[in-house]
């Protein structure tokens, strides 16, 4: 099952290369739909208490101890579903519109899906690193070749290059870290990169301390976190919007997921040691992202910086190092993906209507488009984690974990909640309400956009009614992950 889930998108993408231009988009959408079907099947058969499921474990490079090993557990089952869902939405949205070189575009889309699913599925450290880096390749082309150049001279390829350099530096550090972990753990014996094996016997805390940062930097760049977000502004403005929807919706989560899957189990002592540093980074991301979001005038960047803040919350939840915080973080990863993807699709729709990405040149769009306004309103409220939405439940769990672990951080983080209300509503008001600028023609969304948007919004509403759908399935795995860091620091650390 894991195998078919992983390779279905790519298989469809490759076949799509040989199809005529007009069929490529629909073929790719069918591929994404098939993947979603598989993901749903995995969720349906998921046993919340059953540990790792749908295992695939094949020796891949025996000499180096690298296995091709995949598996599903509570940490990734909903992220897989989210990936499949958002890709279906993004692909369908793109398929409804004219693309240049569509066969190649959709191949890249589907390759990206496979790579992302691979990163979520991988249970072998090197396989994880491989998929993590593979994700970059399709997005490099999607952003660079199908992106838009800015009038102020920043070309799409330059913006993409900046992003690639950032992420590649992180990835290479992570590769070094992964190899070092394997070698130090083997200690002259047989090499293994299986995450479960490595977690059984964590490294000595001296090694943990530096390898932790190699991984952390890679993940923090991906999110992106404060001070490592330099690539965001240019890349977000260059990217094609349907691609950005999946990119922002899913890729950022790979970073947060990496902390839970790799860092906590493998480097528990370092995690505890650097807990406060990570929390400070998380809080800085929350506050800085929010402050940026409420002064930005470019709609993409408002959404982009709001993601920085939201990922800050998720990081804070993970590094509360409590089961409730981490539960909330997992829930919030799904929620944020579900919110930000429709947000970017709505932005695409808005930009088509107003011909500008500047908030100051928008306004009053709700008048002729009540359905769009209603959908956007729901998404906005979910973005600001309105109580009653699943986002609130996620944030509530995160903040509760943080509150019980480090009370001061929770108070500071709650400032971010207020700021979120401000920037999310500001985005909504400035586009949908107030006076309409001269020459702006508002119109309702067509059925094509509706087909993409309505199911996504329906998922938001459904989760709002029953967030326990996710919590009850992830809780066991999260508690197992958190158990790794409980009782730390180990004795040596305590003595020091």
């Amino acid at each position, binding site marked *: 099952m894991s195998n078919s889930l992983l390779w279905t998108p790519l298989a469809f993408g490759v076949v799509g290369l040989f199809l005529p231009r007009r069929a490529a988009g629909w073929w790719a959408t069918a591929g994404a739909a098939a993947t979603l079907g598989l993901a749903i099947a995995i969720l349906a058969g998921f046993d919340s208490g059953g540990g790792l499921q749908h295992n695939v474990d094949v020796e891949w490079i025996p000499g180096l101890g690298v296995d091709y090993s995949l598996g599903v557990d509570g940490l990734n089952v909903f992220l897989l579903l989210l990936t499949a869902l958002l890709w279906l939405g993004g692909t369908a949205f793109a398929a409804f519109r004219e693309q240049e070189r569509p066969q190649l575009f959709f191949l890249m889309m589907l390759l990206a899906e496979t790579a992302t699913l691979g990163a979520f599925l991988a249970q072998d450290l090197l396989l994880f690193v491989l998929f993590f880096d593979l994700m970059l390749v399709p997005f490099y082309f999607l952003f660079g070749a199908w992106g838009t150049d800015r009038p102020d001279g920043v070309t799409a390829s330059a913006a993409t290059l900046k992003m690639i350099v950032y992420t590649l530096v992180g990835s290479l550090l992570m590769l070094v870290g992964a190899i070092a972990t394997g070698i130090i753990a083997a200690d002259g014996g047989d090499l293994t990169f299986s995450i479960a094996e490595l977690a059984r016997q964590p490294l000595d805390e001296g090694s943990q301390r530096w390898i932790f940062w190699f991984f952390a930097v890679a993940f923090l760049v991906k999110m992106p976190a404060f001070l490592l977000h330099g690539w965001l502004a240019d890349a977000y403005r260059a990217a094609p919007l349907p691609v950005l929807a999946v990119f922002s919706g899913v890729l950022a989560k790979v970073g947060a997921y990496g902390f839970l899957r790799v860092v906590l189990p493998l480097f528990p002592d370092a995690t505890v040691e650097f807990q406060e540093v990570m929390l400070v980074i998380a809080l800085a991301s929350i506050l800085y992202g929010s402050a940026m979001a409420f002064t930005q005038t470019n709609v993409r960047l408002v959404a982009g910086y709001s993601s920085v803040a939201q990922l800050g919350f998720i990081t804070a939840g993970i590094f509360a190092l409590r089961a409730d915080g981490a539960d909330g973080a997992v829930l919030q990863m799904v929620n944020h993906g579900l919110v930000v993807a429709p947000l970017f699709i709505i932005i695409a729709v808005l930009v088509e209507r107003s011909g500008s990405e500047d908030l100051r040149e928008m306004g009053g769009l709700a008048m002729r488009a009540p359905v769009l306004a209603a959908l956007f309103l729901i998404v906005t409220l979910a973005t600001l984690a*309105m109580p*009653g939405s699943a986002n609130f*439940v996620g944030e509530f769990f995160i903040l509760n974990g943080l509150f*019980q672990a480090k009370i001061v951080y929770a108070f500071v983080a709650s400032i971010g909640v207020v700021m979120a209300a401000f920037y999310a509503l500001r985005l909504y008001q400035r586009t949908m*309400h107030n006076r309409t600028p001269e020459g702006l023609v508002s119109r309702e969304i067509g059925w094509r956009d509706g087909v993409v948007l309505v199911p996504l919004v329906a998922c938001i509403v459904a989760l709002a009614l029953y967030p*326990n759908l996710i919590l009850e399935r992830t809780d066991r795995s999260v508690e197992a992950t958190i158990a790794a860091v409980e009782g730390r620091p180990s004795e040596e650390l305590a003595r020091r």
Partner: protein
Amino acid sequence: MSATAWAWLVLLFPLLGSIVTAVGYRALPARAAGAIGTAAIALSFACGVGALVSLLGDEPEARHHASSLWTYASGGGLHVDLGILVDPLSVFMVLVVTGVSTLIHLYSFGYMRSDQGYHRFFSYLNFFVFSMLLLVLAGNFVLLIVGWAFVGFASYALISFWYRRETATGAGMKAFVINVVGDVGLVLAAFLIFRELGSFDFEQVFHAAPEHFTTNEWTVTAICLLLLVGAFAKSAQLPFHTWLADAMEGPTPVSALIHAATMVTAGVYLIARTHPLFGMAPTAADIAAFVGLATLLVAGTIALVVTDLKRAIAYSTMSQIGYMVVGVSIGAFSAGMFHFMTHSFFKALLFMAAGSIIAAMANDQNIDRMSGFGKAMRFTSAMLLVGGLALAAFPGTSGFFSKDEILAFASERGGMYVIFTVLGYAGALLTAVYTFRLIFRILPGRPNREAQELIETGHVAHGEPVNPVTGEREDTDVGFPGPEHHIAEHSLPMKVAMGVLGILALVGGLIQVPGVSHAITSFLDPVFHDSPLAQVHPSAGSEWAGLAIGAVISLAGIGLAYLLYVARPETPARLIERLRPVHTLLVNKWYFDEAIDALIVRPALATGRFANRTFERFVVDGLVNGTAETVRGAGGVVRLVQSGFVRSYALLLIAGFAGLALYFLVVSS
């Protein structure tokens, strides 16, 4: 049917009404949407009565029932059910909320008839009622917060209902953000409660609190103070009150429903609901009481000078909620809830009458321009007078009994609580003066242009559609209440709604008259009987003494207003001249807006701008560019070696190998 089943139905109807009117915005005719919306709330009220009957069938001690539909969120040690709690307090709130809401829906049915967003209005209004009911029925803190935030959102949506008005959208944003501050306070309080007691469930928390905490322990005080942040933000108490006056940008029925009768009293409900915690933290309760007192005086003074009709009533609302907060904070729970009930009657009525007059004025809200409506609109004027009398606590009206019960309780507690009685009566004087200032401005005198037109032609005057605040022309597509204005005299639904409320405002107080009946106190007693102050009961004699004082003060206030605004109309101007600094302070609403702006809003925006313009460019990009420069510089050094001379490469190679060979020779020997 059990009380909880009724309660679920109470919740269901408004939600269904909201969804049906929203989804059917194209299919349903406008009148049908209004009818559905009104009927949904009426059904909800009926179910509330059902719950009441079912509850009265139980023994007084057994009158609390919890029920849950499904597990809302559970994991990591937290457990939250989608559960409700039905007890006398929640049923009392349900009845008042749904009852008044039904009437206001009926009023809106007529008042909003010509508005473009008729469906949207009823959908929002029904959603608001659903949220408010969720708030009062919630069985745990998480669901309470959900309801709490939902009413905040509904309030936002309705304040900025005419969304082409920038003043309206700005006011909505302000209300929402301040309310989110309150939400955060509640959320943090919930965390602290969970840390101490390990549960979010009301019954478990209140059951465990007395054993777990010692009186005035810092944790329980902190919990109560955080709860108060939520309560004050929602109930527009100092210093979170600034949004309420701006909220008057919304359509008048919204002001009546949300910003007078129901939502803003949620803070009072919260304090009453969590009284077991406040019972353990008397310091926090006293702080709440003093804030309530300060609010009632500050708002009362501002109401003396405001010239905008709706805003004047809004300040009066703040002031009256101050009384309720004082009441529930000093332990006069049932008196506070009683005042909540009567207030929702007469304040809703006042707003309805004001809406009718504003419609007749073609949306001009300036009271200085109004006069002579007593002749032009007899029914509306009568209702305005009834509401005003009740607000001014004229003897025999509903406000008369409820306000004095709070003050009598305060004097019965004695000690420093006498302050509340004394200043409370001072506030009552203010109330009577500012209320009758409005009435004497509007009703008597020579009819102004609009009133004259109404008398002569029987038609409502029409003017340029301008925003009353900024004076700019309205965008009539949506930013204005439609081409026609509706007044009670011409609209039966409005008339019925106002008539019923008028009767309630007059006689509603008779449900609880000292020495005669105490229906509300005995009904609510099962909820509050475990409070340490439950035994404090002012005697009927002292209550009547208080009522006598109240009557004198009320009459004195009305007389003073008559003297100032009718008998000697030149006095106010002279007073303003004499007390110029005080007047400036009041006109500027004690400069709260400016202070908040300077202390919080500006710094936050400046930080954001600094982050955007400076930090991003120099530090974040600087980090990247700095790295790039370093790499380039290092590359420059290495470049020097790449001369292109093949033979120099060969020399380096050979020299290198020779060096290595030499090294090994030295090492081996």
